[in-house]
């Protein structure tokens, strides 16, 4: 249950005084939509100054009224109501919330506040905005909606995850924000039904410090829909059905073009040409056409909400099903969600809050986003090969290296399934000790069981393929997770003569998460058949074929927050938190984090009262520290969890013991210091809104796996670098959100929202000794393409610099060190200027995977019963590495190879193709492309059936709509999708054939009774 603050302006009661001329006495109670009494609400006889105010419980009585009088009931933040007295003597009134944006409730963690009182940088996304986008996952709806929140897709496949980054990335470890759904720590947002969301609040600055330890990467608070007291049951049904297709196919060579280029390459390499008559090859096989399908997506939701005198409730059920644009049912996601929430007043002062959610899901996947993925194969497979051979078997991809295989065979031989059952929720008791002092105790719980089963059949994809299997096997895994958070919080609030408004929060929170995982592998499946793919049918379980993992991680926190404002003009909030984490050693478990913020509502000042154009202006400043413990468990202890396996007596394995990851007893809290200055403006009669924030976020004592001397034994099997507090990263940027709400005439309403974010990411220091960390992968057997070093953003690309293409032998001769080069090959720059080129020493920083600018734009129009909305977002300033080409003599190539160098003067941009020696495939800026894009993410057109028509069938409203998601992407990037990322800071922006976001055509309806 949330603490509610109801404001009354006592001034109102002073303005009115009784007039003695009538004789009726009217009494009653004024309540809000939850049935809570509204203290200090005012009652005035219309046209007079006769009036009164409610007491603390919302009760009132007013004398000297006659039957013709109209009573005006009002309270700040609520819609004013007028009632003709008539014959009534008791008039109970429920006032509905007047949601102007300034009065909107903002969840700030352990309590709420109102937009106008807010002193931190908090973004709010409403349920309506989410629902309008019909997202399959919450993150999709957040993308581009608010400034400072960067969301990239890990994969467009059904059930594929997203990376959420709030205000940049600060570590090469875990950059995920803390996500709480109704107070429950929530790791996998895929299991949340987006249509159950009431609002999303994103704490971006140090105000997330109330979550101390876990708040360093920002906090996302999701509130689900609840019922309201004293409201009739409202039944809503919504559904949509859609067809998905790929938003992009890569232009690749057809068989004829491929044959010509292959011949050219072999001839240039002094080898016999492979195709005697390329013309006869025709267009060949379009593997992408065979792989991409039109796939269905559908969603059904049912919800009932309402409430009586003392109880409010909501019940919902939803079903979502999506098949993949690659593999259809072989890569699918199904989700069933059920939720039940209730809030009951057990007595005047005690209420009970219950939230229960169930999610069941099933996901099947194909190999994606890696070298050897289905899409990678579809791009690299030779177009001259038919999908099936003369016997009707899948064609073997011989001659195309070890990784490229027939993608159809690959899909047919993939069998896996993940089922997850999750129950989470909350039980909370709220007790009002006396007016203004409330205590709340709540237990938030989460239980998840995840089962995984995979059958790997005996299969031959061709000579030497790494995916060939000589034995069949089955993997069955069981994972159980439990976690709970037990929060106990005291809230106090008091207004002193309405000038001094005080709130205080004091609490403790204990969090525990446990997991038990069991992994089993069985070998030898009868008949090599999926129907017998079960551990119980396997012929053999070998050493190491059954493994387990378990963890028990805990946090203990004590926190306090004090808020004060003077006449809502000067606002101040301070908080402190002491956090302990089981991840640190005995001496370093606890850390103290504090933050504070100030607000100044300038429009409350006298000197602003003349400025009519500005309705509201507030300046906010905050500074504070949050902590981070997102490392593995027990990294302060040296455990024997390394790999120590050897072979004695022939071929059998002997399991020994060995030290695993190196320990560091000195690890302690990573600290995140953030400064924020912000301005909120509403102007021109509330038609325009602007929120601007500038932030500098400096992460210190970064918890990293640091490079360490080989003397420590780190290189032994199962070894890993120790975690140490080393390094500092700074993110700074400007976030601006603009909104316009207007009405052209009564029938056309316009809403426009635009936001823009700049981000500068820079490394201020890194550990001693080796002062850089190399990471990432490019091609096969090549040097790591990213380097993390002081002065560069995380994941900066580190490679060679090209200087066109050698046109002549003379030019080659003038480039010492490029011994493998011939005319037509790439000329590299001798970066270190030592007179000779070297493929290791002449690397430098050539790009960044982090967008420096991102934005989002929403436009919505309502005209009569029609509604239209469009949403676009974009990212600019980052680079993407093209790494989805295998570049073997006979693998297929993308169409840009038609612009290759063919002789002196032909081009200075694209190297020749040859099977002979060359250095053209080395990682250089040739493989780097701008990741700039703008995407029309959603357009939607709806029509609401007139209510008089609906009433005849007993319904309240019916809206039907059609929508297109991912309509079009404006980009020069050649790959499938510029807005995808592995999410690993030091390996992001390297595109190995990322699964694109599907384009979806939908029709749907929303029906309420």
């Amino acid at each position: 249950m949330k603490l509610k603050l109801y404001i009354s302006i006592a001034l109102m009661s002073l303005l009115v005084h009784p007039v003695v001329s009538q004789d009726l006495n009217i009494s009653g109670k004024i309540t809000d939509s939850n049935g809570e009494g509204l203290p200090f609400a005012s009652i005035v006889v219309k046209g007079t100054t006769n009036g009164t105010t409610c007491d603390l419980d919302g009760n009132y009585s007013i004398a000297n009224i006659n039957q013709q009088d109209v009573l005006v009931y009002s309270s700040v933040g609520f819609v004013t109501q007028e009632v003709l007295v008539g014959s009534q003597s008791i008039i109970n009134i429920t006032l509905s919330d007047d949601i102007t944006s300034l009065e909107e409730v903002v969840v700030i963690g352990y309590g709420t506040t109102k937009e106008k009182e807010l002193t931190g940088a908090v973004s709010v996304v409403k349920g309506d905005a989410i629902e309008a986008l019909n997202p399959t996952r919450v993150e999709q709806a957040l993308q581009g909606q608010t400034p400072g929140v960067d969301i990239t897709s890990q994969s467009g496949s059904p059930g594929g995850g997203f990376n959420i980054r709030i205000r940049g990335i600060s570590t090469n470890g875990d950059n995920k924000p803390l996500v709480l759904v109704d107070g429950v720590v929530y790791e996998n947002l895929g299991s949340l039904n987006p249509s159950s969301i009431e609002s999303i609040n994103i704490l971006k600055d140090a105000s997330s410090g109330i979550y101390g330890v876990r708040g360093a990467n920002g906090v996302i608070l999701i509130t689900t829909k609840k019922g309201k007291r004293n409201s009739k049951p409202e039944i809503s049904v919504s559904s949509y059905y859609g067809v998905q297709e790929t938003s992009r196919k890569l232009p690749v060579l057809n068989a004829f073009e491929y044959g010509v280029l292959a011949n050219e390459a072999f001839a240039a390499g002094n080898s016999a040409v492979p195709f005697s008559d390329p013309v006869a090859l025709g267009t060949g096989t379009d593997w992408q056409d065979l792989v991409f399908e039109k796939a269905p997506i559908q969603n059904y939701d049912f919800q009932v909400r309402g409430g009586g005198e003392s109880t409010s409730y909501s019940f919902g059920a939803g079903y979502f099903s999506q098949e993949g644009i690659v593999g259809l049912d072989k890569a699918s996601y199904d989700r069933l969600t059920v939720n039940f929430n209730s809030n009951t007043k057990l007595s005047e002062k005690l209420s009970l809050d219950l939230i229960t959610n169930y999610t069941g899901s099933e996901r099947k996947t194909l190999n994606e986003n890696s070298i050897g993925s289905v899409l990678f194969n579809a791009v690299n497979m030779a177009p001259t090969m038919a999908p099936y051979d003369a016997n009707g078997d899948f064609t073997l991809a011989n001659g195309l290296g070890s990784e490229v295989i027939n993608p159809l065979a690959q899909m047919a031989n993939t069998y896996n399934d993940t089922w997850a059952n999750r129950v989470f929720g909350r039980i909370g008791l709220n007790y009002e000790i006396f007016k203004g002092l409330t205590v709340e105790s709540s237990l938030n719980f989460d239980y998840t069981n995840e089962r995984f089963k995979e059958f790997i059949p005996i299969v031959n994809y061709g000579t030497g393929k790494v995916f060939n299997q000589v034995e069949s096997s089955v993997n069955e895994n069981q994972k159980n997770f439990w976690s709970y958070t037990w929060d106990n919080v005291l809230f106090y609030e008091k207004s002193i003569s309405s000038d001094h408004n005080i709130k205080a929060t004091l609490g403790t929170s204990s969090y525990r998460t446990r997991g038990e995982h069991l992994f089993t592998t069985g070998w030898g499946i009868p008949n090599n058949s999926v129907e017998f793919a079960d551990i119980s049918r396997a012929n053999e379980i070998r050493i190491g074929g059954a493994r387990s993992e378990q963890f028990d991680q805990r946090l203990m926190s004590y926190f306090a927050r004090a808020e004060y404002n003077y006449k809502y003009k000067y606002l101040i909030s301070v908080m402190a938190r002491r956090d302990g984490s089981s991840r640190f050693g005995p001496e370093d478990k606890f850390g103290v984090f504090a933050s504070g913020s100030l607000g100044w509502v300038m429009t409350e000042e006298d000197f602003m009262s003349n400025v009519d154009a500005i309705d509201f202006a507030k300046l906010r400043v905050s500074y504070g520290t949050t902590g981070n413990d997102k490392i593995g468990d027990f990294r302060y202890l040296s455990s024997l969890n390394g790999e120590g396996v050897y072979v004695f007596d022939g071929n059998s394995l002997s399991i020994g013991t060995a030290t695993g990851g190196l320990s560091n007893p000195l690890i302690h809290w990573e600290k995140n210091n953030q400064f924020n200055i912000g301005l909120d403006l509403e102007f021109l009669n509330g038609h325009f809104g602007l929120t601007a924030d500038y932030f500098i976020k400096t992460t210190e004592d970064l918890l990293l796996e640091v490079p360490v001397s080989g003397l420590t034994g780190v290189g032994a099997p199962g070894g890993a670098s120790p975690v140490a507090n080393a390094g500092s990263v700074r993110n700074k940027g400007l976030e601006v959100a603009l909104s316009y709400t207007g009405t052209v005439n009564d029938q056309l309403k316009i809403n426009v929202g635009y936001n823009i974010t700049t981000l500068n990411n820079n490394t201020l220091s890194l550990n001693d000794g080796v002062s850089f960390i190399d990471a990432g992968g490019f091609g096969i057997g090549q040097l790591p393409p990213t380097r993390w070093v002081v002065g560069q953003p995380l994941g900066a690309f580190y490679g060679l610099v090209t200087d066109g293409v050698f046109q002549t032998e003379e030019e080659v001769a003038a480039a010492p060190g490029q011994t493998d080069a011939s005319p037509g090959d790439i000329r590299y720059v001798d970066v270190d200027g030592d007179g000779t080129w070297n493929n290791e020493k002449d690397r430098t920083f050539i790009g960044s995977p982090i967008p420096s600018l991102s934005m989002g734009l929403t436009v919505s129009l309502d005209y009569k019963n029609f509604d239209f909305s469009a949403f676009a977002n974009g990212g600019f300033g980052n680079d993407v590495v093209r790494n989805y080409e295998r570049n073997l003599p006979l693998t297929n190539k993308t169409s840009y190879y038609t612009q290759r160098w063919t002789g002196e003067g032909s081009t200075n941009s694209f190297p020749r193709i040859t099977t002979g020696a060359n250095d053209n495939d080395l990682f250089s800026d040739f493989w780097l492309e701008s990741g700039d894009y703008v995407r029309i993410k959603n357009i939607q057109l709806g029509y609401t059936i007139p209510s008089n028509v609906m009433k005849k069938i007993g319904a309240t409203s019916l809206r039907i709509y059609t929508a297109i998601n991912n309509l079009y992407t404006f980009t020069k990037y050649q790959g499938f999708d510029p807005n995808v990322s592995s999410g690993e800071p030091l390996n992001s922006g390297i595109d190995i054939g990322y699964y694109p976001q599907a384009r979806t055509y939908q029709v749907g309806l929303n029906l309420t009774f």
Partner: protein
Amino acid sequence: MKTAKNIIIGILALAFTACDDYVNVDPIAEINSESYFNSEADYQQALIGAYDALQSTYLNVILSEIASDNSLCGGENANDVTSWQEIDDMEHTVVNSELRNVWKWMYGGINRVNYIFEFRDKTEFEGKDEVLGQAAFLRAYYYFELVKFFGDVPMPIDKRTQFGEESGFGRTPKSEVYAQIEKDLIFAADNLPIVQAELGRVTKGAAKALLGKAYLYQEKFQPAATVLQEIIDPSYGYDLADFGTLFLPEGENGIESVFEVQYSDQEGAGFDCLQCSEGNVLVGFSGIRGYNGPVYADGFGFNIPTQGLVDQFETGDARFEHTILDIEAHATANAGVEYSEGWEHTGYFNNKYIPRKGEQSIGDTHITNNRNYRSIRFADVLLMAAEALNRGGIDDSQAQIYLNRVRERADLGNVNATGAALTEAIYHERRVELAGEGHRFYDLVRIGMAADNIPNFVAGKHELFPIPQEEIDLLGGTISNNNNY
């Protein structure tokens, strides 16, 4: 209401007195390395961990071949595994990830041995010296690798080097490292049996053979000859085996095997941790690219034998066909053979260590081959003994006997030369007998003939590999690198 109030007050009382101890959690089912070695089994388990690092020496073997005049790097293209290509061309620098792997993996093994010695006195049990003897051998083996690659190296012994302690180490002179190697091997030889119950365990003969090799590398010819001749004595039971099956499964751990690194194909592996593979990674990497046919299996086409090596074989040498695969001849002789040519293709492959058809190689077939690495063969012992006797001016006729024993198996005639000519004959015999087995580069270096035989080899520089710059930096940047890097 009273009850509710009491409940609330109770909860509050509980919550606000909640204590810091809540976050004191012990690991579940994890063994703390500080509280181990409580039984013989613990020592035995830790010893298996120390053996494990032997499997990562596949890299040392292939680098020695590639660096020498025996093989070219090969692979898919000129930039396939850049670090190997550079070593092949003697263009390697202080930044070379594979040399760093050698450094890290060998110290990984040393650290595991030192862990055992750190707790050597904790628990007593019968046969402990035999455990320690094996451990001492392993440490000597790993240090020998390091001293061959890098010369003077930091030498932590008898205690793990924990994170934060590494900066105290400078480079210990090569002579002192050798002294430690000798000490460990003498201890091992004194405490190990001639025959071990389990195949693959270190024996007395293995310890003596490695000791003899260490003496020979230091040109201590008399002690080398003595210790090597001890194990040539029939009481140790070694003999030359049939060369035709020596490198096939049936030849594993046979009569000629003095010390073998054991591999298995029963567990999958990944490219992100090649040192974790239980299989011999060298084999798949040396295999024929795109091979499809009756005898062999596909590989990555590295470690390509040179024509120069092939030319070293005398006519009629029975070892040739088992050492060198002529792929064109093979394709002609066998119908349906397909293969593709990789980088630096010579038409030859290392027939001792390439994948063969029918091998199980679970997981990724290229990195889980079960072929044991014949680290020290009896033929090697004979040739080392011959060399020590000859170069030490001790006994040329005995040297001839050992040399000719090896030649006889190869169906070659006796050598009757003495003095320097005999030395040359022994060198020649080492090259062909041990071709493709990872000895050539160090042999060339120790006899001072590397510059004459390896293209681009710079005398005074390339005898040693550079200590990886990152490792120098991580030791505090105070130690110097090898000459001319």
